[in-house]
């Protein structure tokens, strides 16, 4: 009997282009947008937009800016040097958001190739407090450009400071230093390591299974998928309240199957719809972003079925507990947005304060994300992701049982409360009171 309601819902979806679009196209489009954002902002390239004003315009400043130009992480916009008016222009570009951050090499400052600390600083970073994160990012890039692209200048400053503070070089030593600095410059310009760059001291060891971009694709696929699972499941589940209003519920309740036919038929349908919906998103992640879905298809399927059961169970619980569609939609929209924000479907949880990260563990979004991240990021087996999958399964089971129980109580409750199109008690009480008042 439940298969009948399953079929009715499926045909309803297939004949409703708007619902099809909302269920399968919108989540995929939303995922692509999220994936583009994540991969663009946290991949190999920072893509920081920097406005640069060089008032010095000597060989050293030109070399520094050339080194910055070579950085893949920066998009450099140079302003023509035309005095103080251009400083204001630089500030305006940052203030208006045309540039993320500004770099000023002032003419009235210490030179770049001498030890600093005597006059105004030779490098000024113009920043907008709203984009404070751009400052350390640019600082790091300047440091890298200075020591990597201008090692002779950096070393020359050190030698000069050494002479100023501690010792005097002989003519012979000075010649050797000059030769060494010339050699360093040649190495740097040839792209060879000079041993002076801080980067030369670093090695990287990534603990994830795949590359950084793919990690975030897997993360955003799971994040978007579960949030839309919740929305789509609620949309399908509230059709129970539409059936209450239309009288279909009355018709079915009079039959032998009772309310369980509707609740379980809808639950089954929502699980299938959820699996297809999540499937579309992960196929886009596979074909569009190289996520290795084929190698992980079995654990992915298990997690997806359990996640769909969770969303379907919670949605059916809501639909059976609410009295009107409007009530259900209001509660659902609020709850889904909150758990999606806390659970990491909107912003990765690593960006959240520790307290919010802990609260996030109470949301099904976090469990789903942990399970998907485990599969695609850490290459975990099903055993290793048993905790989040178990939490989802337990929630699904409890929600499904509760939905059935609430539906039974509301239909055949001891006090005769019913959820039919015309709740007789309510109608009768209201009308009798009205008649009494009139008399």
């Amino acid at each position, binding site marked *: 009997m439940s298969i009948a309601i399953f*079929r009715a819902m499926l045909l309803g979806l297939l*004949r409703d282009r708007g619902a099809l679009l909302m269920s399968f196209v919108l989540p995929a489009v939303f995922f692509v947008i999220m994936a583009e954002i994540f991969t663009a902002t946290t991949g190999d390239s920072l893509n920081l937009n920097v406005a640069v004003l060089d008032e010095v315009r000597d060989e050293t400043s030109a070399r520094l800016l050339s080194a910055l130009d070579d950085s893949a992480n920066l998009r450099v916009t140079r302003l023509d040097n035309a005095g103080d008016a251009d400083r204001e222009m630089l500030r305006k570009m940052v203030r208006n958001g045309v540039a993320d951050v500004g770099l000023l090499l002032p003419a009235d400052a210490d030179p770049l190739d001498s030890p600093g600390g005597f006059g105004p600083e030779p490098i000024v970073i113009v920043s907008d407090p709203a984009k404070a994160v751009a400052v350390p990012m640019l600082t790091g890039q300047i440091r890298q450009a200075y020591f990597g692209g201008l090692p002779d200048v950096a070393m020359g400053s050190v030698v000069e400071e050494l002479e100023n503070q501690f010792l005097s070089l002989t003519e012979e030593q000075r010649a050797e230093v000059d030769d060494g600095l010339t050699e360093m410059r040649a190495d740097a310009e040839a792209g060879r390591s000079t041993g002076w760059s801080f980067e030369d001291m670093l090695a990287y060891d990534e603990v994830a299974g795949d590359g950084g971009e793919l990690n975030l694709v897997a993360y955003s696929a799971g994040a978007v998928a579960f949030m839309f699972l919740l929305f789509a499941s609620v949309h399908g589940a509230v059709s129970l309240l539409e059936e209450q209003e239309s009288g279909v519920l009355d018709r*079915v309740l009079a039959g032998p*199957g009772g309310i369980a036919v509707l609740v379980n038929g809808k639950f089954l349908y929502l699980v299938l719809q959820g699996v297809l919906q999540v499937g579309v998103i992960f196929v886009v992640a596979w074909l569009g972003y190289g996520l290795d879905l084929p190698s992980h298809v079995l654990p992915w399927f298990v997690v997806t079925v359990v996640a769909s059961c969770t969303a379907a169970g919670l949605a059916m619980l809501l639909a059976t507990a609410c009295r009107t569609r409007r009530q259900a939609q209001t509660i659902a929209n609020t709850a889904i947005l909150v758990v999606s924000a806390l659970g990491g479907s909107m912003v990765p949880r690593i960006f959240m304060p520790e307290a919010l990260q802990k609260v996030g563990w109470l949301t099904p979004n976090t469990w789903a994300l942990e399970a998907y991240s485990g599969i695609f990021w850490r290459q975990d087996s099903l055993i290793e992701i048993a905790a989040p999958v178990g939490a989802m399964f337990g929630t699904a089971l409890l929600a499904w049982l509760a939905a059935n129980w609430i539906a039974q109580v509301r239909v055949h409750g001891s006090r*005769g409360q019913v959820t039919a199109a015309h709740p007789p008690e309510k109608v009768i009480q209201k009308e*009798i009171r009205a008649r009494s008042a009139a008399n």
Partner: protein
Amino acid sequence: MSHSPTAAGGPNPPLLQISQAVKMLGGWRALDGVDLDLYPGEILVLLGPNGAGKSTLLATACGRIALDSGEVRLAGQDPRRHAEVRSRLGFVPQHLAVYPYLSVRENLEVFGRMMGVSRATLHERVDEAIRWAGLADRSDAHCETLSGGMRRRLNIVASLLHHPDVVLLDEPTVGVDMSARERVHELLRRLRANGLAMLLTTHDLSQAEALADRVAVMLDGRICLQGSPSELIHREFDTRQELKIVLRDVPDDSGVSLLQELELKPAHGSITWSGPVSSDLAHVGELTSRLQQAGLRTAEVRVREACLEGVLLRATGEELRL
């Protein structure tokens, strides 16, 4: 729909028995000792004003509401305790309880399966229901494209796919025009001829007169009148006609005494009075003269053949309108 025809109220035992049904709702007696039997092959029309207890009685008959006392027996069993006996029951909701985006055939297939019809017989039952509803040429049309009358007929046959013995119909023709209503009546008469027992609520008195084998009038949770339409009319008016008087003012005590002396009963706050009257027009003229002499100003005086409306007006003090 292979039901064996039987005479209404005949020797067969009742299919639906409601005995001494009492249901309290928030201090009100929504059902106050209702006794009602429904026999194979009869249409029992339940009349009464809003709030009289009709919907509660239907919900009770379905087993949806537990009684505080009394009992409901469907084919000898309590439908609340025995879910399987509910397969002998069909319920036609007042609203058009069909899926608008499905075709006629798809709707019937869905509801057939929901009501437990096996896959093996589903196709045959659906074809049968489509024939009964007269929708053979529209069987693949989406419901949202059907006329109101067609949807009403579909709404009825969607509750018959499992071949119930008893069908409860909650205002089955509300909101349809006369022609569509007549086609629904025709369908219900054919179902009755096939032995189906139908309990039907309506506010449409002409429908009750056209269809009912028996009428039960509910008021304040009780069945205050029960019998065939002709019996009820005869009981209330004998062979006389019905006189209905609408006064311009509320009568004083002497006026009320006079009206009661003339066998008239009040409705609508003592403005409307009705009762039996001789068909002799001279007698009517004499009666109205007496009213005028007593200072009662009349807005309307009407004499007509006695009908259920008059019975109901006298029984409940309220008029039911289409």
